[in-house]
């Protein structure tokens, strides 16, 4: 059976797979195939990541020296707002679920496609419609409110809040449709034998994410709709000049936007679980706890939004309760991190690029998490609120969650997506550059924050210069690492060595039961699952008889490092 999947590669016959079974732009733009839709999303989010990344470099460049360096204060307001809005709404939220999730989830559960392929394609078009609507506002009049759109400034400013709000409203539909599709897919489309306790942890992560997308995103919809109506019709719900309550806006906004943090981080947790499992060859320690902690985080995430509002005029009673609940989030998150470490412990570690990203995540994410506990502490938040400490905290969480996990997952599934390997050595150098660059950029910001550097300022006192310059230099290292990634991945896309069907020896269905590149309907026949995703000792199709030369697959090329293993 395992040989069947690679038979075509050995006979030299041209394979029919999802990339080549239909050709032309139309076959891509009208595709209902979840794998192709995943790639459409891939191109889209990378585009927006580049835009957001350039804006980030501009922000850092402006902060290289005190006073005006590159741009005026007003321009700076626009630039950091756009960086935040683009990165969050157009990169972090769709990145892992819509790209990696779309590509892998149906195969991982043994389905031919998601439950609603047409909705899946529609969600991509809605994504672009929302993005373009945002763009109209941005191009015509900019956006200077910060990505949080706090009233009353957002109801007063002449920048393009209305258009951007409508764009975010539309983007919400895209996010909801993806979440809805995934939940129904996981519930109804699993292959025979794929029980809930045999779901790969990436699927669990996406499932928990989808719950959040479905329950939180509609509230963002009504929030930005009311914001737009506030500007168009003066409805006076949020605008204090009309008797409205700006703190109510923050309640509305954070009811979505705090859980949205988990939209960004939960799928990342799933990716990390896959990477840790595959590259330690040991299975995940405490599978059930890791799986259910995702769902626990999804629900607990709805009970803590008030910790963004400690100094916004929220009542002290509410703040106290929100603070206590915030600490609870640490429990399931801790369960995950400790279980990953326990999974690696005495595992048979295979240090490939995807695992490097996972290890980077395991270093970076706890720093973000612990500083989150610090910020969740009521008394401590008062001096730290709106300082660079907060900026560093959420970059440690979101960049580790969104970017490192996305890159780790991309490197992991890349051979399955395109059937080609990338240059391992360059990839490891790039991973190192990104890890170093990230920490050099953001660690100094913790210190700046404790020293009192407020966020969103384009100027600062000369005492902060060294740390700001360090941070800016870090952003260049980070950018360099990302450029390197782009370079070798592009090279791999056209000239990379052909990848075997299961280059990592992974145990999930997308590796064991599809060809080098999956066929349009994923499987020849619906698989029947008889083991868990990390039961490597039962997975004959990966390891042969479980000893000695593990790979029966004849096409495994040792060139890219299989041999060292």
């Amino acid at each position, binding site marked *: 059976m395992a040989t069947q999947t690679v038979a075509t590669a050995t006979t030299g016959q041209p394979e029919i797979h999802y990339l080549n079974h239909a050709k032309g732009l139309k076959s891509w733009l009208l595709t209902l195939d979840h794998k192709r839709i995943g790639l459409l999303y891939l191109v889209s989010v990378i585009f927006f990541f580049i835009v957001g990344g350039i804006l980030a470099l501009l922000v850092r460049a402006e902060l290289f020296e005190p006073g005006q360096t590159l741009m005026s204060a007003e321009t700076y307001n626009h630039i950091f707002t756009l960086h935040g809005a683009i990165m969050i709404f157009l990169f972090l939220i769709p990145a892992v679920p819509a790209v990696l999730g779309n590509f892998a989830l149906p195969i991982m559960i043994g389905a031919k496609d998601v439950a609603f392929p047409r909705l899946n394609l529609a969600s991509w078009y809605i994504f672009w419609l929302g993005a373009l609507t945002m763009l109209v506002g941005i191009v015509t009049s900019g956006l200077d409110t910060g990505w949080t759109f706090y009233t009353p400034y957002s109801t007063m400013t002449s920048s393009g809040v209305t258009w951007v709000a409508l764009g975010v409203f539309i983007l919400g539909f895209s996010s909801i449709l993806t979440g809805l599709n995934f939940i129904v897919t996981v519930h109804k489309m699993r292959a025979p034998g794929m029980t809930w306790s045999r779901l790969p942890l990436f699927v669990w992560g996406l499932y928990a994410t989808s719950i959040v997308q479905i329950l939180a995103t509609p509230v963002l919809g009504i929030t930005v709709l009311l914001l737009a109506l506030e500007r168009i019709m003066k409805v006076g719900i949020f605008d204090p*000049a009309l008797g*409205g*309550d700006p703190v109510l806006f923050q309640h509305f906004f954070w*009811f979505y936007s705090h859980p949205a943090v988990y939209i960004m981080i939960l799928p990342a947790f799933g990716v990390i679980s896959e990477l840790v499992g595959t590259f330690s060859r040991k299975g995940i320690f405490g599978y059930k706890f890791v799986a259910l902690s995702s769902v626990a985080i999804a629900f607990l995430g709805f009970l803590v939004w*008030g910790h963004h509002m400690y100094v916004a*005029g929220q009542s002290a*009673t*509410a703040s106290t309760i929100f603070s206590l609940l915030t600490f609870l989030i640490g429990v399931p998150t801790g369960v995950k991190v400790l279980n990953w470490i326990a999974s690696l412990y005495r595992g048979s570690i295979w240090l490939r690029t995807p695992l490097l990203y996972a290890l980077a995540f395991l270093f970076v994410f706890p720093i973000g998490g612990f500083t989150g506990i610090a910020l969740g502490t009521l008394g401590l938040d008062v001096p730290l609120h709106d300082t660079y400490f907060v900026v560093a905290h959420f970059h440690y969480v979101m960049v580790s969650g969104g970017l490192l996990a996305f890159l780790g997952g991309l490197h992991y599934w890349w051979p399955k997506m395109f059937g080609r390997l990338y240059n391992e050595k360059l990839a490891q150098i790039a991973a190192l550059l990104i890890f170093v660059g990230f920490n050099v950029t953001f660690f100094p910001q913790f210190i700046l924050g404790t020293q009192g550097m407020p966020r969103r300022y384009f100027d600062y006192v000369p005492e902060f210069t060294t740390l700001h310059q360090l941070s800016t230099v870090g952003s260049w290292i980070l950018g360099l690492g990302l450029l390197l990634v782009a370079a070798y991945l592009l090279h791999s896309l056209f000239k990379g060595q052909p990848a075997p069907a299961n280059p990592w020896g992974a145990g999930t269905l997308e590796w064991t039961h599809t060809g080098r590149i999956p066929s349009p309907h994923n499987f020849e026949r619906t698989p029947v699952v008889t083991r868990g995703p990390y039961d490597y000792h039962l997975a004959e199709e990966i390891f042969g008889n479980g000893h000695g030369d593990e790979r029966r697959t004849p096409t495994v090329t040792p060139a890219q490092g299989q041999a060292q293993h």
Partner: protein
Amino acid sequence: MAHATHHIIPRPLLLKVFLTLVALTIITALTGQADLGVFNFLHVPLAIGIAVIKASLVVLFFMGLKYDRPVNALAFIIGLLMVGVFLAFTLLDMLYRGDIGNLSPEPIRGPQIEQVEAPAGH
């Protein structure tokens, strides 16, 4: 093949549910207008209680959730639960606004409008 698990709700039951809904609408409209004297505080719980009963009837019988798969009910109930969370925590803040003593419990007022006693109805 589809018949096996699909419950067909009998027409007399649908009619009974509809008539109950009409009756409840009339009750809520009448009690909503009436002066309940010392029991006036019951207006809100009564109105919401009747609305909940009506909505439950629609969900259980018209939408057939009573006979449907539990997972569908779960999806719906979790949605309602989150509305409860949203409402409860936001009201918790609103009701305790200003409890540190340094803030006004009410939001900053806009341009002051002269208070005029309104004639009821028009």
